[in-house]
Structure formats: structure tokens, C-alpha cells
């Protein structure tokens, strides 16, 4: 089901809550190093699907392999081998930059020497040396985002899940964040990202759009625009999500 170039593969993956089908037989694959946009209206099933893929929620049926592990039987291995960053709560505001980095390194089970080396390297690479003893709450938003993204990658996961990483963020910082995504993808990290900004959907290599628990469309932005005869992703999204 999964060759070496594939980091996520699902087949008829489903989740039922009583009579309600939140995720209805979704099948898709994501390649290594790909920037994959996971879109859908509120309530379409995105969050439920993401929880299953990150090992936080047991699926009802189907198959899913993430980073080489089965989400049904190896959810702890899945968690250890992925990175995750949400819009909020990613960093501890009352801890310093350095403490946050060490904390995440510890959570992901890096050895003591690795932890020291990685922390120093990360702080240096992000240019945060001068503020490493400052509380995260005092950092500008752009720096916080950089830091949150970097700690999500501190254990060198094959794939990083980003759940609306740019919501409410100013336009310049939002674009700086996408630079980080591009850099990570260039290093071979797979990026799985959700967003409500349709211009950001265009920055993904491929996009899936969920409607009522199903993946209604999956392709490159260019192909989707052709298929739906739309001039931008906003129009594609409106056509698909309105059609229910």
C-alpha cells in the first residue's frame, strides 16, 4: 500500500459518531516532500480526519498509514514520527525561548546530548540568540511562529501537520511563514496544511477539498481551476462547497 515515496496513504478511512458519518471513506496519498493542502468548509470533517491521521482518534473503518505506521495499531509510533503545530497553544508563553525548545525536545524523547545540540543549533539558525532568555509572550508574532514551526520539527519528523497556522496573522508574517514551509519541503519534509486563505491554497502542490465527510476534489491548484472553470481557488471552493 505504501512505497518509500509515500508518507500518508489512506483507503476508505471513515469515522462514525453514532449515526453521524464525520469522515466518509476517504482515500488519498501524500508524497514525501510534498506540500499538501487539506481544505474544506467548517464541519466538513477536516478536523476529524486530521485527528485520525495524527493518531489522536481511532478510526471506525478503512486503512491509513502515516510515516510508515498504521494509525489503527501503531498510533503511538505515528505520534512520535510526526510534527504538529496548531494556530494556538503551540508554545508556552510563560517559558523562555530556550525553555520551550528544551521542553519540546524532551517531549519528543531526544537524548540529553541531542537536546543540547539541537536547541543551540535551532536558536542560532532562527537568529534568536539574543532573546533566548526572553519569555515567549514578549516575542513578536512572526518570531513566535518561526519558533513554533521549528519546535514542531525538532525531532526530524517525516511529516508535519499544520492546522490553520496563519489564521488572523498579518499579511507579511503570513507570507514569511510560507517561506518556512517552502524551506522545509525543500529539505524533504512533507507538509500537510489546513487553511481558510484561498491564496495559500495556491501555494500547495496538491489540494484536497472535503465536503460533507468526503473528499470531493483532489488535484493540483491549476488542474482544479481548469476542472471547475474557475479563475482562482476561491471560486473552486465556492463552487464545490456551495453545491451541497
Amino acid at each position: 500500500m505504501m512505497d518509500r515515496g509515500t508518507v500518508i496513504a489512506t483507503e476508505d478511512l471513515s469515522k462514525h459518531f453514532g449515526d453521524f458519518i464525520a469522515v466518509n471513506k476517504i482515500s488519498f496519498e501524500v508524497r514525501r516532500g510534498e506540500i499538501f493542502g487539506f481544505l474544506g468548509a467548517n464541519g466538513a470533517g477536516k478536523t476529524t480526519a486530521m485527528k485520525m491521521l495524527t493518531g489522536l482518534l481511532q478510526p471506525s473503518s478503512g486503512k491509513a498509514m502515516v510515516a510508515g505506521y498504521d494509525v489503527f495499531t501503531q498510533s503511538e509510533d505515528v505520534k512520535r514520527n510526526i510534527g504538529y503545530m496548531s494556530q494556538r497553544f503551540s508554545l508556552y508563553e510563560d517559558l523562555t525561548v530556550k525553555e520551550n525548545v528544551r521542553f519540546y525536545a524532551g517531549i519528543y524523547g531526544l537524548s540529553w546530548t541531542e537536546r543540547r545540540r539541537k536547541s543551540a543549533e535551532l536558536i542560532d539558525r532562527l537568529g534568536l540568540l539574543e532573546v533566548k532568555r526572553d519569555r515567549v509572550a514578549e516575542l513578536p508574532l512572526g518570531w513566535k511562529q518561526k519558533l513554533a514551526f521549528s519546535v514542531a520539527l525538532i525531532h526530524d519528523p517525516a511529516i508535519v501537520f499544520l492546522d490553520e497556522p496563519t489564521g488572523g496573522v498579518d499579511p507579511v508574517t503570513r507570507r514569511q511563514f510560507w517561506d518556512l514551509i517552502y524551506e522545509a519541503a525543500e529539505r524533504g519534509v512533507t507538509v500537510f496544511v489546513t487553511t481558510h486563505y484561498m491564496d495559500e491554497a495556491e501555494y500547495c502542490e496538491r489540494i484536497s477539498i472535503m465536503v460533507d465527510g468526503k473528499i470531493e476534489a483532489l488535484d493540483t491548484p491549476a488542474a482544479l481551476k481548469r476542472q471547475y472553470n474557475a479563475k482562482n481557488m476561491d471560486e473552486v471552493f465556492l463552487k464545490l462547497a456551495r453545491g451541497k
Partner: protein
Amino acid sequence: MVTVESVSKSFRKVEALRSVSFEVPKGQLFGLIGPDGAGKTTLFRILTTLLYPDQGKATVLGLDTVKDYRAIRNRVGYMPGKFSLYQDLTVEENIEFFATIFGTTIRRNYSLIRDIYVLLEPFRTRKAGKLSGGMKQKLALCCALIHKPEVLFLDEPTTGVDPVSRKEFWENLQKLRHQGITVIVSTPYMDEASMCDRVGLIQGGELFGIDTPEGIRATFKHPLWRVAGGSMYPMLKALRLYEHTLSVHAFGDSVHLATKHQGITAIDIAAYLSTQGLPGLEVGPQAAGIEDVFMGFSTTQHDG
């Protein structure tokens, strides 16, 4: 209708608002556009009489927000950014509660909320806490409207809401404005600016542009180009190194490039990109949007 004169507000060391001034005439749909932390919520809380300004003065319906707070509260509607209804009450109970508080009934002002209420009706007996995000937002709007306010304040009603629901929400706001209600709405989405009569751009507690959307777009003074047809990251990287570049920003499937001087042509830009291993890209003039103006301002601020 609403006036704000040199209003400043600080929370300890943080200057949330720095001498903000603007006016909104009756019946206008005014958008306050800016990211998280810009000062939007602080401004809303001052206008809805929930906070005192440190300096300056604000009036709503000709009433002072400090002295006449009681009178203002009866005549404005406020939908806070954070969902603030009673989660344990049903949809209907919430609306009835707000109607009663303001001494009215659902029936009396039904015409105002009808369009939104019909969408909520199937969930009438559901507890507010069990509603989806889109439905919560509709309920909150209903509750803010039930006493037929003359001014409606909506703090980030569309944050975290998908594009389809956002569009529907704005259609509702347009209808309310046609019914004569003055609407002041804040949003971090730059594309929503075009739905407003007038907008104010806000960042770091400063309001730096107040005009019609067209007026704001016209303030962009540098030559602006659209570059498309290649992969985003290589295009961005190459254009950042171009000697004539003032700024480079990704915009969906294309790049917006502002150049420092007049006199650079599309052919020059395309030729430069060819030398960087990116031949055959489309280059053409681009009209500036609100987001270009916003970034033009905030980049100057970052550098200054």
C-alpha cells in the same frame, strides 16, 4: 453617528491604541481591517462602553462613551469576537433572553432577523454550545440584532470561518445596512475590505488609512507587477535578489513585485528572470489591492 477623537489606550507597557481618530456616518458599513493584536478589540470595547480610553474621546449616536454609557448600551448591538452566548441555553432561549433584557420580543423585531433566523430554526431546541461554528455565528448575530440597534458592532465575526460561510455572512451585513443600520465590523481578512463602504487599516494600535476601498488602493504609489507561470518559491527567491526590487509578495498563483523606480519594463523583469534560470514567465502590470497597500505600510514600519 460614531466619532473617535485621538483615542489612546495602554495596558501596562502595551500601547493597544495610539491616538486613533475616525468618523462613521449614519448608515455606513465601516470595516476595520487588521491582524490579531492590532487593537481592533480594544477599540470595540471602548465604543461599546466596556472600557475607558486613557486619552481622547469617543461618541456613539452623539452620546459620550464614558458619561452616557447606559443610553448607548440600549441602542447598540455588539457581537464580541469570542462566542459569548449561554452555552447551556437553547437557540430559542438565548434569543428570548436577549429580547427580554432589552424589553422587546422576538415577534416585534422579527423582520430584522428573519433571514438569519430561518437558517437557525431547525436547531431551535438545540443548546447553543452544541452548534457548529457557522450556526453559533448566526445565533450571535441574531442576539445582537434582536433589540433593533441603531449601530451594530461586530468584532471579527468571520475569523476561522470558511470562505463560503464568510460570503454568506457579508451578504447578511449588506442587507442590514440597507435597512439603515450603521455597521462597524473588524476583520483580519483583507479581501473583505471590498465589501465595505469605507475601511480603516489598523496595525500596532495605529490607524494608517481611512478611505473607500478604491481610495485606499489608489494610495499605492510604486510600480506594481504581476509575475506568474513558474513555481512560487523559485520566483520569490529570484525576485528578492533583483536590484530594482522594492518588495516581493506571493499572491495566490502569482507574485506581486513592486519596483523602486519608474522606467523598469515588463521586458526588463522577464529578461532578468531568464538570467536566473526562469525563462518564459508572464510579466505584466498589476493594479494594487488592499493587501498590497497594507503590506507596503507594514514593511516600511518593520524596516523603520
